[in-house]
């Protein structure tokens, strides 16, 4: 039994951690939060140069050709510093869609650019309020032209292209959905930046009016492929969340050691100590569930759907739990703009919704456990 990463993988993680400690301090996150840029372009270029973006992309497409285990650990480090870069959109999603469903020509055209950071991709499924379902996808492709509105789309205002889920031809429900690659810099696309709870990442409303759309994968296969890729991305996102949870816990712990009240460090009070112990518990459970997810992702196990939902539910809760109690531990100081607590609080709540909300994944988890149970019986 070996439910751990290898020494080589940990060495790579360590290298990425040191790079991010230098290049992505909280000030870099604030610069995006408060400034006009959609993401930290210098940081993104640095990550590309380090090989981080293409770590799981095959060498023939300009990547490093390593496994998704390495990508999991990189995700953890990006989450730890809540990096203001579009890695989740471009790498966990767009690159994975291309790898799993793209034609040779599509892979050759886009993957090297995603690995080098020269291009950014994203994924556009959601259309407004409520839980997503196939029936709620109204965007339509006719005669190779896409029309409809997708919102909120992470990195929609800065991505070069999007993998868009839309209806094409006849059919109902999930089998009516197909995927298309759409150039977001081309004609028929209006992008509006959205105001969100986490401005350290950017979101946009995309309005398509006859935008040229190139099919990705088979017609009617869109929902199935998207579900598969979102499971894979959910595991990577869960690693980001665990990284963020760990950092929020560390911030709270450091402050509890340093802040004096009633003549003693506040960490000596059980009210604070037990709050932090519970944060440690949720972060640890989430980490263990993420390792299960990493194993499923890297081994291509049939348990991947269960593992993805498990990791995702657990990590979403852990990051939200740690981020909110980090503010609580800091007391009034934690609610100031100057302290970094709110950066983690914002990110934890934004990530809780990306790829589908907590209740969506809870539902998926039980549906899948039920399927696994029925199969076993």
């Amino acid at each position, binding site marked *: *039994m070996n439910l751990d990463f290898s020494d080589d993988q940990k060495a790579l993680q360590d290298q990425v951690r040191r790079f991010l400690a230098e290049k992505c301090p909280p000030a870099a996150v604030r610069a995006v939060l408060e400034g006009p840029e959609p993401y930290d372009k210098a940081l993104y270029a640095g990550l590309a140069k380090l090989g981080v973006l293409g770590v799981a992309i095959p060498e023939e497409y300009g990547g490093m050709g390593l496994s998704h285990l390495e990508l999991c650990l990189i995700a953890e480090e990006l989450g730890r510093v809540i990096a203001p870069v579009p890695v989740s959109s471009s790498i966990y999603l767009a690159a994975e869609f291309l790898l799993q469903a793209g034609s040779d020509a599509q892979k050759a055209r886009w993957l090297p650019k995603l690995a080098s950071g020269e291009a950014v991709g994203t994924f556009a499924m959601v259309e407004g309020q409520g839980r997503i379902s196939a029936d709620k996808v109204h965007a339509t492709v006719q005669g190779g032209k896409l029309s409809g509105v997708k919102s909120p789309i992470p990195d929609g205002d800065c991505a070069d292209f999007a993998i868009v889920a839309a209806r094409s031809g006849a059919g109902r429900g999930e089998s009516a959905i197909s995927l298309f690659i759409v150039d977001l810099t081309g004609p028929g696309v209006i992008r509006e930046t959205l105001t969100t709870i986490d401005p350290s990442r950017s979101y946009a409303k995309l309005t398509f009016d006859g935008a040229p759309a190139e099919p990705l994968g088979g017609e009617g296969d869109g929902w199935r492929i998207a579900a598969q890729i979102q499971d894979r991305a959910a595991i990577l996102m869960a690693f980001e969340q665990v990284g963020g949870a760990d950092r929020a816990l560390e911030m709270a712990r450091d402050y509890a050691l340093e802040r004096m009240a009633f003549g003693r460090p506040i960490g000596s009070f059980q009210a604070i100590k037990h709050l932090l112990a519970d944060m440690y518990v949720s972060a640890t459970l989430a980490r263990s*569930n993420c390792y299960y997810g990493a194993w499923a992702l890297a081994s291509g196990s049939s348990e991947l759907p269960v593992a993805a939902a498990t990791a995702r539910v*657990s990590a979403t809760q852990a990051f939200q739990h740690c981020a909110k109690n980090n503010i609580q531990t800091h007391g009034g100081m934690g609610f100031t703009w100057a302290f970094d607590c709110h950066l983690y609080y914002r990110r934890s709540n934004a990530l809780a919704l990306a790829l589908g909300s907590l209740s969506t994944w809870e539902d998926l988890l039980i549906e899948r456990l039920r399927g696994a149970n029925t199969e076993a019986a």
Partner: protein
Amino acid sequence: MDFEDTPEEAAFRTKARAWIAANAPKHLEAELKRAGFASSGVESEDPMAASKAWQKKKAESGWACLHWPKEYGGGAYSPIERVIWGQEEGVYGSLSGPFIIGHGMCGPTVMAWANEEHKERLLPPLASGEEIWCQLFSEPASGSDLAGLRTKAVPADDGSGDWIVSGSKVWTSGAQHSQWGLLITRTDPDVPKHKGLTMFFLRMDSPGVDVRPIKQANGQSGFNEVFFNEVRIPDSQRLGAVGQGWEVSLTTLMNERLSIGSGMSTGFPELFQFCMDAEIDGRPAVDDASVRSRLAQFAVKQSGLKYTGMRAITALSKGQTPGPENSIGKLVAGATMQELAMFALDLQGQAGVIQDADSPMNARFQAMLLRSPATRIEGGSDEILRNIIGERVLGLPGDIRVDKTVAFKDIPTSGRKS
């Protein structure tokens, strides 16, 4: 990353599996699968006799106390081999219940602190299950605050060097079945609390020892109260120096933390099955959105414990000492079990109040509801475990103490205010 054995581990597993297949009491398998809280599930014969028979058989073939040295009746196997054995032993492992405290805590303490003659006398029959041990630590007035114990040992006034012990212990599992007890006493009330303690072992049939079962809140009687009325203990049965009892007790408590498996059960698989079978408005309960949300919460806790256990086994397999992440097991399992039981009863509607043979799953959730408060207390309460995590894992400072530097006799207690 994989769930496979190394070649050496696989070889050990094959060997263990073959021996178990040839020797396990298969006629008890069905009963053992129904094991409930604090019982092996054996009903067709005397459960203690069944436990002792299996332990003796294991000892005769070198499968008892896998982690102990051979000269004391153990198997001298590695920690990871012990884990593999546990996986292979499966349901038969619940027959080991009566020996857990002796093998896991008392034995290692004797091994660390007793002289050679005592070790040779005491450990082999403990390993083979012929003799059972209990741990006489907690008292009515000192649970979490163990060092506040009051059972006193004073030198006999006849010049024999013996000690005379008076007082009482409580929450003593298995005392009624035990031949030996590991006993911590106060020998000096005039020094600070941790400095005045001394550890002994004694025969449980010593004159003046009175074991009385405690009727627990759930109606069962797994624990006892043990009274000591001027019990005489030879000085040769002292472990460690006079006044060193706290240090000796830490050996015992540390060993408690080393017993790891693949995560404690929370009752989730049973709840999931129940939700597949039970109906809400004519549809399976598992179809209900609010049920799903709660189930998912329990599922990720169960899974998190399972994989935390596997990470610990991985560390063992690499020869590392498992990290403090293992201290979360009981903290999570106890609270989850309690919430899960309440939820299962809620799903049964007003009939959830019934605890009889007709209750779903043989009233398992009702029993769980009534037993779970103890899980949150025994072997370190939730609050003590949070202190351990806060102080030893996260490095937070200890609470400010008013009882560490004053003589024990001057510390205010519930019955003696300052």
